[in-house]
């Protein structure tokens, strides 16, 4: 499909209504979404390998994220449409891909050393809290760092439960 990056950008900002102009006899909504999800998976793989290679620190992580506003908006669209199994699975794919890197940065930065039996649930809650607070109209490093601090406070409390 031509201009897939352009469609990706439109979907990131407007969701399903953003892709309406691209629906045609040859490209159904389902096909377009499918192609967008495939492109997003490629982007996640690229993104993950980059932060691994660069040995990103906790503070650098947010500057890095701020360079990818479309990808972040796309993730937020997936998060908002989690009731759709395809979107949810791709959302979880992204979370799992960055989990080893991000979790280690967060636990060392906030000195969260003791993993409880349900630490996976804590991690999931942190991700969901972060995305629910993420303002797609303010994707600055500062905003993203601020909401991380808020969610980390929650984590620290929940991890003790």
């Amino acid at each position, binding site marked *: 499909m031509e201009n897939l990056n352009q469609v990706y950008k439109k979907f990131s900002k407007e969701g399903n209504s953003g892709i309406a102009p691209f629906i045609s006899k040859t490209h159904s909504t389902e096909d377009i979404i499918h192609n967008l999800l495939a492109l997003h*998976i490629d982007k996640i793989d690229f993104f993950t390998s980059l932060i691994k290679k660069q040995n990103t620190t906790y503070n650098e992580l947010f500057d890095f994220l701020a360079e990818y506003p479309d990808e972040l908006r796309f993730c937020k669209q997936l998060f908002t449409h989690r009731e759709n199994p395809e979107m949810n699975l791709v959302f979880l794919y992204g979370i799992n891909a960055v989990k080893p890197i991000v979790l280690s940065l967060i636990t060392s930065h906030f000195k969260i050393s003791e993993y409880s039996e349900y630490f996976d649930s804590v991690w999931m809650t942190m991700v969901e809290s972060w995305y629910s607070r993420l303002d797609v109209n303010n994707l600055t490093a500062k905003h993203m760092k601020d909401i991380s601090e808020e969610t980390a406070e*929650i984590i620290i409390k929940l991890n003790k439960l």
Partner: protein
Amino acid sequence: MSVTHGSKQKWIEKGYEHFAFFGPKNLSINKLSKEIGSSRASFYHHFGDIEIFIIKLLDMHWKVHQQFCTRGARECKNFFPGLYLILEQYPIPLKFSKQLFINRNNPAYNYLFVKTYNASARAFILKLFSEQFGLHFAYEDTYNLWLTVGESWYSRLDPNNLSAVKMQQLAEEIMNSVLRFMSSNLYSKMQRTPLQN
């Protein structure tokens, strides 16, 4: 009026029911007080404020859920219809879970929702789920599929119709679309990548 342990338990039980039926935002001490026939003073004596009361309700849900897990592990022999026949016998806890799901912008509710979902998956559901659909993936991948079913299932679950038949039907519909997705090249792409785990 004497303030007894029994009256504390009455508040919690009725509060649990109200949370399940009306949601956390509609919990009313006045309404609870009328229904259980205890004074507001009794509420404040036992709990101090509504936030502590809600923590007690969340604790109760966790205990009920642990009982559900134990029973499920012991009695539930198959995913269809076994799981849904057992779930049908827990209408109030199911409504409570649905409220946690609806109100999961509150991290404490979200955490309890995810934690209970995770606990029952570990206790018995994931095994039955894998058997039912012939899944032979790593634990995390199977859990992600189950979590995906849950996202969709809870968002569409009608708390006014918690019959086993209806709940199973909903799971089947969702599973059909998950299975369709699993046979797509997109899912294979997700499985192939070495970065996932």
